[in-house]
């Protein structure tokens, strides 16, 4: 082979490696970017007058006078819409039955869309559900609804070989020649006056309870549930994991029992998380009856079993990294073994143990499968731990970020309407996990610096 070819192969080989790393980084970016951008969109967005009205009426936030003034201004801008609809209604009743039937269906669609966009028409009785009491609270959603209102979608099946093609049809064309025709131009031109979008920072998204199954409000109960589940899991897993690691490193010889224990730890690490879920259900709830049904305690215990091997491994590594000379020094001063462990070895390995702990906390926070059958519910109140009988609070099921993300994204009745809430939840969860990991990385860097001198 020529030298230049060998060199080419060598270069392209390195290139391949670099490319795969670039691909990896790109994948990370592609996944994180929408989560961050759209997740932030749950907090920072252009809120309409409907949003401010909702905040005032449901959460008693904002100045009543200002909102009322704004609502009045918006109502003035909306008046022509309702006038045109009413006029068309009149015109319709004068039409021939054939023609009337043709328009009736389309009119109903328009009316529904107008209601969705602007809220219930003035003069109609107030609906029961909060979601029906307001128009679009977010300008991006309003724009989307406006599009639906201005154009409808048709499918063109003329080419039998292919799937139907989407065709967008202007509704103005449907109503050409009627008194409704100018409505669409009016809507297009005056949407801003009708909804008055304004940049809004809804920071309380994080601390509000959800309202009307997440149509409005925030995600606080889920955040709190995740925190409790994670901390509960650490409460069980951390002492057990650290003690196990100490025993495996310091006290146990190299006997058969120990290698069996090690195999068990690695087996546990390999058990799929959904199997933990079934185990938690069958053991903690159906057999031990820790609680009669799903609860924070049962979920924490299941999560603890899941992260136990991670903590054991990390702690073992950290303890092994403590120089043998520390132990020798302690023993030579007359310390007993346990004393050497507690006063010298554990403090010296603490940062390493903490690093592993923090990472497994991230894992526990993000795990969904184990809590499906043991702890998580879709709708629930925020856990109130600081009450008289906190045991009862812990024996309750709780919403939790990972489960609610799944639930809202797949099982919610209006999945598309609350995308921003879903993204907000994913954003918060990912941010939580990343912060924990960043803490771990910082901790490790500090340890490295300290060990160097």
């Amino acid at each position, binding site marked *: 082979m020529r030298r230049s070819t060998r060199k*080419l192969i060598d270069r392209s080989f*390195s290139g391949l490696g670099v490319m795969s790393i670039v691909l990896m980084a790109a994948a990370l970016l592609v996944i994180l970017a929408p989560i961050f951008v759209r997740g932030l969109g749950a907090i920072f967005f252009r809120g309409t007058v409907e949003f401010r009205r909702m905040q005032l009426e449901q959460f008693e936030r904002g100045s009543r006078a200002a909102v009322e003034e704004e609502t009045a201004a918006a109502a003035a801008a909306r008046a022509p819409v309702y006038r045109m609809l009413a006029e068309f209604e009149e015109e319709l009743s004068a039409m021939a039955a054939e023609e009337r039937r043709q328009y009736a269906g389309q009119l109903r669609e328009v009316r529904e869309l107008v209601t969705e966009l602007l809220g219930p028409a003035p003069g109609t009785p107030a609906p029961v559900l909060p979601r029906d009491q307001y128009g679009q609270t977010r300008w991006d959603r309003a724009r989307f609804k406006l599009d639906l209102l201005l154009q409808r979608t048709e499918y063109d099946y003329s080419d039998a070989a292919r*799937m139907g093609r989407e065709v967008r049809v202007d509704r103005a064309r449907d109503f050409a020649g009627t008194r409704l025709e100018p409505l669409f131009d009016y809507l297009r031109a005056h949407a801003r006056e009708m909804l008055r979008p304004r940049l809004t920072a809804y920071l309380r998204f994080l601390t509000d309870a959800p309202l009307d199954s997440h149509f409005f409000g925030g995600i606080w109960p889920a955040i709190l549930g995740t925190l409790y589940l994670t901390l509960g899991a650490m409460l069980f897993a951390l002492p057990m994991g650290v003690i196990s690691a100490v*025993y495996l490193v310091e006290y146990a010889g190299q006997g058969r029992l120990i290698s069996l224990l090690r195999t068990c730890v690695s087996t546990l690490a390999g*058990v*799929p998380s959904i*199997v933990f879920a079934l185990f938690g259900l069958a053991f903690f709830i159906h*057999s031990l009856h820790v609680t009669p049904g799903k609860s924070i305690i049962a979920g924490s215990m299941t999560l603890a079993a899941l992260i136990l091997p991670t903590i054991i491994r990390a702690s073992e590594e950290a303890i092994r990294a403590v120089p043998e000379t520390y132990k020798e020094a302690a023993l030579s001063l007359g310390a007993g073994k346990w004393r050497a462990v507690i006063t010298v070895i554990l403090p010296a390995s603490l940062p390493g143990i903490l690093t592993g702990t923090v990472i497994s906390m991230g894992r526990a926070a993000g795990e969904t499968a184990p809590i499906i059958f043991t702890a998580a519910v879709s709708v629930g109140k925020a856990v109130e731990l600081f009450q008289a009988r906190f045991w009862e609070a812990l024996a309750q099921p709780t919403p939790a970020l*990972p489960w609610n993300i799944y639930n809202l994204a797949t099982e919610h009745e209006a999945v598309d309407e609350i995308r921003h809430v879903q993204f907000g939840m994913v954003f918060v969860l990912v941010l939580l996990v990343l912060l924990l990991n960043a803490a771990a990385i910082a901790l490790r860097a500090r340890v490295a610096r300290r060990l160097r001198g």
Partner: protein
Amino acid sequence: MSGEEHPSPARKRRKAPSGPASSEGLHGRRSSLLLSARASRMRRAAGLAGNGTLLLITSSSAIVVLFIFYFIFKDALPFFRLQGLGEFFTSTRWYPSSHPAEFGALAIFFGSALVTLGAIVVAVPLGVSAAVCLSDVLPFGMRQAIKPVIEILAAIPSVAYGFFALVVFAPLLQEGGGRIMALCTWLLGAPVAVLSTVILADLLAGRASPRARAGVRVVALAALGACWVLGLQILAARLGQIEVASGTNALNVSLILGIMALPTVVSVSEDALQAAGRELREGSYALGATRAETILRVVIPAAGSGILAAVILGVMRAIGETMVVWMASGNAAKIPVPWYNLLEPVRTLTATIAGDMGEADHVTGSARYHVLFAMALGLLTISFACNLASEWVLRRAQRKRGA
């Protein structure tokens, strides 16, 4: 001579510098060198008790493993007693809630296998070449900068991956699946094409007589290049024609699972590559081999079993993953036609368990409830076998290195 009358100068000097809190204070606290029989018995008993307690706590992970096997097995057994083994493993008809219910899980096992295979196809080449790059190509500083990328990939919760697959990636795939695939064909195919053309042309030219060499090379380059361009063009055009019926399909899930398995594959195989040692590499470089030759011929074979272990661990990660497949695989319990058609929806073991338990839990004791445990038993067995295999492989690698 008596110690009383003539205290030794040693003692004297020793006491001299000590102030009021003399060393006597320490000696007072000192126990005698010998333990009484009782004290020593007590001490031994305390030691034994302490050791026993620690052992008990340490065994808790073993106990959990044992209990997991026991409980899954206990609840899986009634299913086989009720329904037998045959249908479960051979039929593809999965109608657990109809009357009479049918529990053919073959398609579900197949779905798990298919997405796992897909994930491995994505993760292994990418992961191993990234590991090689990390351990042998990049300078130390760069490596430190890239480590967090891997850590973050590993840290992102699976439900976030699932959400991405369902909400961002699936619509994308559905809208422009054909075009995306065509683009990927070109992106991946073009470098391979260029490289193989050059190498083959070079090899052919090497065989030709020295005079004809230049001519042969040009002809070979042109011919091979044309073949490649044509082939890629045809492939890309055909892929571009494909319309993706639904974005929630096996391809989507395979890609995401592949990305999720990447960190495991990268870090385990990087460890293996590092462990192969410097001497090995230096020996090869000393013979005039290039970096690529050294890595391909010497380092990767030496790290082979470690890389194998990485692949096994990657498989475990992919096969046990629940949320992504549950959210984005389409959950259709049928074998795609043809079987390798990744664009069709599939259903996996994990997703079935997660999805059906909610309803089956109300009918505890029915075959519908127990079949899920049977599936969990299957999963558990597979992951246990994988785990043993990876441990065995790693231990063998260690022994080989030690010898």
